[in-house]
């Protein structure tokens, strides 16, 4: 098995040369995931076959190559596996800050909090898009480069695979028995008969087989009697499907963000909203969404909201009973929206994403006439639904005062507690999320709210710059800054002593729900891509690609052939038995699942040997244990 004349070049040096050429051209064999790639098509597994040549045809430098060479080099660098690995790591690393720092897309309030807590660090981080990592240009750069690299690699791989699918398995090496697990034996059949018997057996095992053509010769001029068999093309097919589906998924996600929209709206029981831009409290849409024509036409009214809780206060279930119509003046249908059970209307879905309480406030003047009334939603701030309430009344009917004619507007801020209890340390708190004993701790202000100056204000926060805190009368006594009202007790839910002799009663309570309308027309696309990803992955991980070669040669030739190798006992056939006509060799390659392949090869070898052997000879010395 040392150096030798003609037989050697067709086996080993070929692959070394292939590898050398590939490296010289800057092309690196890149296997798409899973340690398989073109499995046997790697340098080490390519015994001189024409199919699946990794490096030969790319980057060949021609006369025009001087201009394109640098571009090609960059392209090959980008589509190499090393670059892909590096980009994968970068992608993983880049996602980390997105989970550690507050993100605007997830929780803008937390980002504001972070800015307050780290006034010097936060703006610097903000310049790096650290609070919007997944929308940042550097994050996009990483995944776009990764996908370009992937597409570049895919295009070549698809071509090779297509060629492999229509082509023949690569020709048998000179000495298949020298491959790991290979065997050889004497046969009473002539070489063509032996090879054909092997072909039948391999075909029965669903291998794709290619018999060496009649009259084909080996490089040394001797006739070529061999069969090449290959199986497991599905591995590469699955692998390609997986990667192509990844690209499709990214495209679907991108298109979804261009054509999708979402709106959030708070609805108090009894109220409703229509799916139009103006009815949402918050609305965002993709670049290519027409805010008039593309929104699914529907209107929705919440008729009832029910929330139930465990005795511990842990939520058990929320459901909103709604009536909706999908066209103007159309028939009304009812539905129930729950967590995990959105309502699908046209291309949009309506989700229940939150809920809370909205007390009913009535402001009366000294004569008892109603000045203002309405439900005001309060923002929940803990698990027991203690909620922050802010009420601003701009039009109080009070005359402006002072030389600058400051308006006398009223504002109240307070904490709503659905099940109110007095805690020694913390004051009035809520001990259960259901409205068993609703209470409201309230403070009043009078002055200029600055709400009529054209500057948008957050309805849930109060600007008390030009306001004076009131001292009012109520259940806790007269002339106090804060009062605690019990909403279920008609005698303990009114605050009096407001400017102008006015009074405020909190006489009712409703629940509100927050709905989110969301439309992503490419959701189905992404789902199909996801399913293809899983199917492709499963196939590429489960199927093994392997090649098996059987070669036969006339024994009489063996002495004159180049096979007088040191270790080839073929030349020294002591058994000059007349029935021994040819020597049969079998060998194979599989890069993945070596144990399983060894067993399969053994079984096939046994079959082929049974079909061809006359006098079994001792196992070839090259047979190795794994």
């Amino acid at each position, binding site marked *: 098995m040392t150096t030798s004349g003609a037989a050697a070049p067709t086996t080993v040096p070929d692959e070394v040369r292939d590898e050398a050429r590939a490296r010289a051209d800057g092309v690196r064999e890149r296997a798409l995931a899973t340690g398989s790639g073109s499995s046997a098509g790697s340098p080490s597994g390519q015994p001189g076959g024409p199919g699946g040549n990794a490096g030969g045809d790319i980057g060949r430098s021609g006369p025009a190559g001087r201009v394109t060479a640098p571009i090609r080099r960059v392209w090959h660098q980008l589509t190499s596996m090393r670059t892909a690995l590096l980009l994968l790591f970068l992608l993983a690393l880049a996602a980390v800050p*997105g989970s550690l720092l507050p993100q605007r897309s997830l929780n803008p309030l937390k980002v504001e909090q972070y800015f307050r807590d780290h006034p010097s660090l936060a703006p610097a981080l903000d310049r790096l898009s650290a609070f919007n990592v997944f929308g940042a240009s550097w994050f996009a750069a990483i995944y776009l480069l990764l996908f370009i690299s992937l597409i570049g690699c895919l295009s070549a791989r698809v071509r090779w695979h297509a060629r492999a699918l229509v082509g023949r398995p690569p020709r048998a090496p000179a000495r298949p028995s020298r491959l790991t697990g290979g065997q050889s034996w004497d046969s009473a059949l002539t070489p063509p008969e032996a090879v054909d018997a092997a072909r039948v057996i391999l075909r029965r095992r669903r291998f794709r087989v290619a018999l060496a053509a009649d009259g084909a010769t080996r490089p040394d001029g001797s006739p070529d009697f061999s069969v090449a068999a290959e199986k497991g093309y599905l591995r590469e097919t699955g692998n390609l499907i997986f990667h192509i589906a990844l690209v499709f998924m990214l495209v679907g996600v991108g298109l979804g963000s261009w054509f999708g929209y979402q709106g959030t709206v708070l609805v108090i029981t009894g109220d409703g909203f229509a799916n139009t831009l103006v009815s949402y409290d918050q609305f965002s849409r993709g670049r290519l969404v027409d805010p008039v024509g593309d929104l699914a036409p529907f209107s929705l009214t919440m008729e009832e909201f029910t929330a139930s809780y465990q005795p511990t206060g842990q939520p058990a279930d929320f459901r909103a009973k709604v009536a909706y119509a999908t066209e103007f003046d159309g028939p009304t249908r009812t539905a129930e929206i729950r967590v995990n059970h959105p309502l699908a209307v046209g291309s949009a879905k309506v989700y229940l994403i939150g809920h809370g309480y909205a007390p009913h406030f009535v402001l009366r003047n000294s004569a008892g006439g109603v000045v203002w009334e309405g439900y005001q939603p309060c923002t929940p701030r803990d698990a027991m639904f203690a909620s922050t309430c802010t009420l601003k009344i701009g039009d109080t009917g009070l005359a402006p005062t002072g030389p600058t004619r400051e308006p006398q507007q009223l504002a109240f801020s307070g904490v709503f507690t659905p099940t109110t209890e007095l805690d020694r340390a913390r004051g009035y708190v809520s001990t259960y999320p259901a409205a068993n004993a609703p209470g409201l701790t309230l403070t009043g202000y009078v002055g200029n709210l600055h709400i009529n100056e054209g500057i948008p204000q957050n309805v849930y926060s109060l600007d008390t710059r030009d306001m004076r805190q009131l001292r009012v009368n109520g259940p806790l006594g007269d002339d106090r800054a804060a009062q605690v009202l019990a909403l279920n007790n008609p005698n303990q839910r009114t605050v009096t002593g407001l400017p102008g002799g006015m009074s405020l009663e909190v006489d009712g309570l409703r629940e509100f729900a927050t709905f989110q309308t969301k439309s992503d027309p490419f959701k189905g696309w992404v789902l199909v891509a996801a399913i293809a990803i899983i199917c492709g992955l499963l196939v590429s991980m489960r199927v093994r690609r392997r090649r098996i070669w059987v070669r036969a040669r006339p024994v009489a030739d063996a002495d004159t052939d180049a096979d007088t190798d040191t270790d080839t006992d073929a030349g020294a056939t002591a058994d000059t038995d007349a029935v021994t006509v040819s020597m049969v060799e079998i060998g194979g390659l599989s890069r993945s699942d070596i144990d399983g392949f060894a067993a399969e090869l053994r079984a096939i070898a046994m079959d082929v040997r049974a079909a061809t052997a006359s006098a079994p000879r001792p196992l070839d010395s090259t047979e190795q*244990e794994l």
Partner: protein
Amino acid sequence: MSVNSGLAALSDHLLGVTMAVYALAMLGYAAEFAFSRFGGTIAAPAAMSSVGAAQLTAPGRVPAMAGAVTAGGAVTAGGAVHPAVADPAATDPAAEALAAAAARDADRVAERTAAAAAMAGGRDGAGAGAGGEPPVTARVRWLGRIAVALTLLGWLAHVGSVTARGLAADRVPWGNMYEFSSMITLVAVSTYLAMLARTRARVRWLGVFVMFPVVLYLGFAGTVLYVAVGPLVPALNSYWLKIHVVAAIVASGVFMVSAVTTVLYLLKDRWENKLAAVAAGRADAFAAMRKRGGIMLRLPSAAVLDRITYRVIGLAFPIWTFAVIAGAIWAEAAWGRYWGWDPKETWSFITWVIYAAYLHARATAGWKGSRAASISLLGFSALFIDYYLVNLVISGLHSYAGVE
């Protein structure tokens, strides 16, 4: 809210039993490991090859012994490559240099294989039928068998504990982190038992390394993460809980086994490299090597460990992919978007990307072996962060640990 307190108590007791029995099993595996050292009394010394590894105990003789084998090994392994160097066709200087480099690589591989073979030689000779069964006394082997029986017993108690918990709460028993952890360790032990069954107990050596993290994990779950039996929060009340969470649990349990085999691979790989250095006369055998040689010899070769790791990750990766996609489908139904970069989603993405990198690295020259193994460990760290730190430290939509 109907919690059957009797069943709940039974579940807790069974978990205690599970932990105790697993710990005993771990001791059994460890004992089998410890007593099957080389240099002690060995049942079948006759089966040891002439260059038996027992000689490793004699310091000065190691290089000579291993060196001799290297020379022998080079005949077979080197033969495949050396012709290339002498091949007259390779006139291209770059190709020549590359061929020479390839030959050097092959030499190195041959060296290592030979050195490993020297160490493993006695073992393979002894256990020709047992396929790598190390030379241990029958009594020591019984320790291992008892450990397997204990593992099986603990596994039954574990299944009982999980089942009782589910029945007590009248729902699937994976609604909070305590229950996830219990399920993950159950999957890890099941994976190990399945591997035992498939290889006819040839991977018993893995026992101590699987049981150790499992016992630690269960202890952590039973103390820090423990919460009383209770119903689910509404967000979890969906049939996707069965699909998404089961897939995530199974993938994590299997990844856990892969992390164990990766650590073993790295240890063995280092040891084999050192051995090769010793064999080549570049280094002297040192005391620690001889002392730990016993454990290292018990382990399969680095190449086998690497292959096991790859196959285990190859099993877990599609399951994890499915878990992430099922989670996205559930998120679409629950929160109105299939992907929102919630911390949990972000870290499952990071985990996925790192394990994908592992699979690619294993097929990339220069990244195979210990570098790929480090990536696998990195992936498991990301998984750990995904499971524990995200729930306990970083707040997000997935914060349902129920731990204060």
